[in-house]
């Protein structure tokens, strides 16, 4: 927009901006970022202020304005889910491996596949990562600046939306886990040669 021209027009009053944001978010199925909302409002509008006013207006209603990462969306109030039970499509039951992997990515992101395997103590099957990518719950983050430049995984806005989280900081128990040091990246003490990587482990085992 040309500032020289649009500057001639004043932004609409906040109450009107609030109505506009309400209409935009009602019509959108997916969460909209503050920037996306701002781009659709008249020049000079303040989407953050309008969103704050709107959030307050909908507090306690049957529909709530929810922040999802850097985006916002209207969602039905969680306590009314029982009314909607007829519309629930039976979601595929996630495997234990998938749930665990998802939790590990969410609490440790960005995380490499090797690190996921280190935490789980078992190799992560291709199918598990694929499924989580397909659900759009995890996505590729930046490559780790370590030898081999491995890819990392992070959780998505869809993940936050699905689990009703404002941000990864709101993950259940995340503060306690961090305080307990359980989210630290604690490398294994360098073990002597004898152990896991020894291809003759099986033979040794039989000696025991």
């Amino acid at each position, binding site marked *: 927009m040309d500032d020289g021209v649009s500057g001639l027009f004043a932004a609409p009053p906040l109450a009107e901006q609030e109505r506009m944001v309400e209409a935009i978010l*009602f*019509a*959108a*199925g*997916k969460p909209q970022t503050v920037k996306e909302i701002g781009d659709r409002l008249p020049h000079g509008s303040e989407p953050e202020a309008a969103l704050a006013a709107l959030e307050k207006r909908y507090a306690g209603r049957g529909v709530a304005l929810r922040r999802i990462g850097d985006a916002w*969306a*209207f*969602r*039905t*109030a*969680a306590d009314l*889910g029982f009314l*909607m039970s007829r*519309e*629930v*499509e039976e*979601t595929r039951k*996630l495997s*234990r*491996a998938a*749930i*665990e992997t*998802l*939790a*590990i990515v*969410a*609490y440790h992101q960005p995380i490499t596949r090797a690190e996921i395997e280190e*935490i*789980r*103590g*078992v190799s992560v099957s291709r199918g598990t990562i694929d499924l989580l990518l397909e659900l759009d719950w995890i996505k590729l983050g930046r490559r780790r600046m370590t030898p081999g430049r491995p890819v990392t995984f992070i959780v998505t806005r869809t993940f936050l*939306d*699905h*689990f*009703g*989280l404002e941000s990864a900081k709101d*993950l*259940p*128990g995340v503060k306690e*886990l961090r305080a*307990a*040091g*359980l989210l630290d990246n*604690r490398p*294994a*003490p*360098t*073990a*002597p040669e*004898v*152990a*896991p990587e*020894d291809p003759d*482990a*099986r033979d*040794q*085992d039989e000696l*025991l």
Partner: protein
Amino acid sequence: MPDDHAFDAHLDGLNGSAEGLVVDVDGFEGPLDLLLTLSRSQKVDLRRISVLALAEQYLAFIDAAKRLRIELAADYLVMAAWLAFLKSRLLLPPDPTDEGPSGEELAAHLAFQLQRLEAMRRAGAQLMGRDRLGREVFERGEPQAVGIRRKVVYEASLLELMQAYARIKTRDDFAPLHLKRGPIYTVEQAVERLRGLVGAMPDWAVLERYLPEGWRLDGKKRRSAVASTFAATLELAKRGALEIRQEAPFAPLEMRARAGERDDG
């Protein structure tokens, strides 16, 4: 969780007599998972777990599996080897010449791994227990697509405008040479016209009277018509059709048909 049942079965087996031991490695997600399951039999907080006792439990489990000739995946055996090594480190007095981490350090790391895995399991269960989109929370059922309006903005600068005008104005400068005919009344036209009129000019009359229609008012056109008509008059006088007179310099030119050319003659 279906796994909980398998898990209970293991616990039962492990707590029972050696004969009643149920060994089903298929139910575990790897050696760490098996260790975590075994650790529960100690019925203490993972932070106070006895890694030594846990290592012994694990090795006993693997032994039982072997006696039953159960095929064990390599990583279970690798873990067994590592735990055997750890056990020896924990039991023997530390060797000052030994390099690498102490048995206690290794045991502490294993305990950390178990705590961390358990924390992640619990976190996963908590996540799944949240109010989830499409189950307890719903999005807009009739989302409205955002249409796209195309708006064409035309760009033109003052420079382009001036250049366009200059282009038009200079086009002629570069056009192939041909003389532009302005409003010109040719001598040929004047001769033609006057010849037709000669019969009707018996008396002296001023030249301007015989200018053609449409060439009398506009300055340029009038000048051209006067000049051509004058030239035509001279031409016709030369041919002997007209007489011309002028009473004084710059006085009006008068003309009449010569006798014999006149209609009445």
